[in-house]
């Protein structure tokens, strides 16, 4: 899986580092002082690296749990995100991660115990509040579970924190960690979903939509709460009708009582991130037409296109769902 593993000096003796190195005995091991030496240099080609990313094992210092942007919520009192990994196994062409970092290598922060301490401290600040923690902002929460054992480590923590909610955001069908343990009511397995033509064209290396739906069936049967994330909606020929049919297909399949929440948002990107994505993939039609720079500094579809996409798909979702579970991104 990895030809090269970089090991940050601070993480060298961590038990999680040793366990991962034992799993990949053939990988070339390269020592670095700080992960930034490998990850941050400017003269890197994200697209080239994406073909054979290396793993960087490091420790995360400084702020590990951060508040989400104001529009990003699931109805809790407070919303936070944390990133035990940077970068994703998959290669979705619309994903902001392509324009976010210089490197496509994966960073795994092995000091889970420090993240857990920070989450517990954040909850303890206001124990009566409903605090939501998003784990899949800078990576897919479950795609590398076999290597990271992330869910295995964090689900027992949230089991002890009933007022906190953990969102595992994923496209992965690697759900055995979840199926091998009892579900907890304050964790939601949130699947990013797009209709098959969009997934085939833009979600490279990700499991098929059908495979994701089958994984969701298993999770539902085991009692897990599911999140549906129709995000980003993509504008394409006859796209709205395709999305409407897709919403019907998904929501007729997943029982309403198992759906924790539904979100949606149209494709958008901060301007600087968009510029980098466009430079990486200069022939990508997704980045070419019907887009504008809006007054928030975001590149997004022109207002009438975005409005119609959001309104029509929202309306179809609300034909199936209680509005209290629906959180469209603004």
């Amino acid at each position: 899986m990895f030809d090269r593993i970089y090991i940050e000096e601070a993480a060298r003796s961590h038990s999680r580092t040793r366990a991962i190195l034992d799993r990949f005995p053939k990988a070339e091991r390269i020592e670095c002082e700080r992960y930034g030496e490998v990850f941050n240099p400017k003269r890197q080609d994200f697209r080239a690296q994406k073909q054979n990313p290396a793993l960087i094992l490091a420790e995360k210092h400084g702020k590990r749990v951060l508040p989400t942007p104001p529009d990003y919520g699931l109805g809790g009192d407070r919303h936070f995100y944390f990133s035990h990994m940077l970068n994703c196994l998959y290669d979705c062409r619309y994903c902001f991660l392509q324009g976010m970092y210089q490197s496509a290598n994966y960073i795994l922060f092995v000091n889970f115990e420090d993240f857990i301490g920070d989450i517990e401290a954040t909850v303890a600040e206001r124990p009566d509040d409903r605090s939501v923690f998003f784990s899949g902002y800078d990576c897919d929460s479950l795609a590398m579970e076999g290597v990271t054992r992330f869910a295995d480590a964090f689900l027992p923590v949230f089991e002890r924190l009933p007022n906190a909610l953990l969102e595992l955001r994923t496209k992965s069908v690697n759900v055995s960690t979840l199926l091998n343990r009892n579900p907890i009511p304050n964790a939601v397995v949130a699947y990013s979903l797009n209709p098959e033509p969009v997934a085939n064209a833009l979600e490279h290396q990700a499991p098929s939509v059908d495979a994701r739906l089958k994984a969701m069936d298993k999770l539902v049967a085991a009692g897990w709460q599911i999140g549906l994330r129709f995000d980003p909606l993509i504008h394409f020929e006859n796209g709205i009708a395709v999305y409407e049919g897709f919403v019907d297909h998904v929501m007729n399949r997943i029982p309403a009582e198992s759906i924790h929440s539904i979100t949606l948002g149209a494709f958008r990107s901060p301007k600087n991130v968009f510029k980098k994505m466009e430079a990486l993939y200069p022939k990508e039609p997704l980045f070419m037409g019907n887009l504008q720079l809006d007054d928030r500094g975001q590149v997004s579809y022109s207002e009438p296109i975005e409005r119609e996409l959001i309104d029509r798909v929202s309306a179809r979702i609300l034909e199936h769902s209680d509005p209290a579970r629906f959180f469209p991104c603004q």
Partner: protein
Amino acid sequence: MIHFATALHCEAQPLIEYYRMKPSGGVGRARFFEGENARLAVTGVGALAAAIGVTALAQRHTESGALWFNVGICGHKTLELGEALIANRVSSENHPERFFPQPPVTSVWPGCALHSLAQPSAEYVDGLAFDLEAYGFFTAALCSTTLERVNSVKIVSDNAAHPAGERLDKETVSRWISAHVPDIARYAEALQSALPHSETSKTAQAFRTSVEATMRFSATERQQLLDRVRKLDALLDSDAFKSLNELLETHGDAKSLLKSLQDRIDAESLRKTVAGADV
């Protein structure tokens, strides 16, 4: 195109023969050679000479996408004489910054940290190779390309059993390098296949030239034209692109032409976003 840099002519000779390169001048102490698929600089010994030679070669040939290879000899405590390694970390005794090459494909050689010294040394350290040029080579090459395209392949010429300072003849060095040239060529081919490259088609270049000859563009409009032609080049097949020439007959000024081009981009991208994604 592959750009090689070696310190010595005896290191270069097997590459010059393999890639059928011919002398193509020089700058200062650096001597250049050029073939159909490769260019080479014999830079002279040391990091500074390597940096100067590489910079001069890069300035002569500014096309993006070239691979860069530093090929030469090194010291290593335990590897046998004549064995090859590829640098996975490049450091210098004079600079704090270190380079971590990021090859998108694997090579046949073991990866090894490489430390560039100012002078040859017979003091060896476990797991570390020593040379005189790689740091200067990386510093200069990275001014014109990225870490995925810069490589240092070194052949062990001294080790703890045969320390630096023992007599080394040019023929032996050439023979050692020569043994690894086919692997270097295969690795370079694999890298070239793996690395992304995109260029504008001749049809698109011709269209842009004829548009610029027909109408006046401000600097901003010229940039917009470049950007829109690049996009249409990706979205349209050759025949469809040629039909854009009709726009020159129906549009008299830059603004209206640019608007028509953008309308076409909006329509085509709507059709092709889901059908023709750029993998």
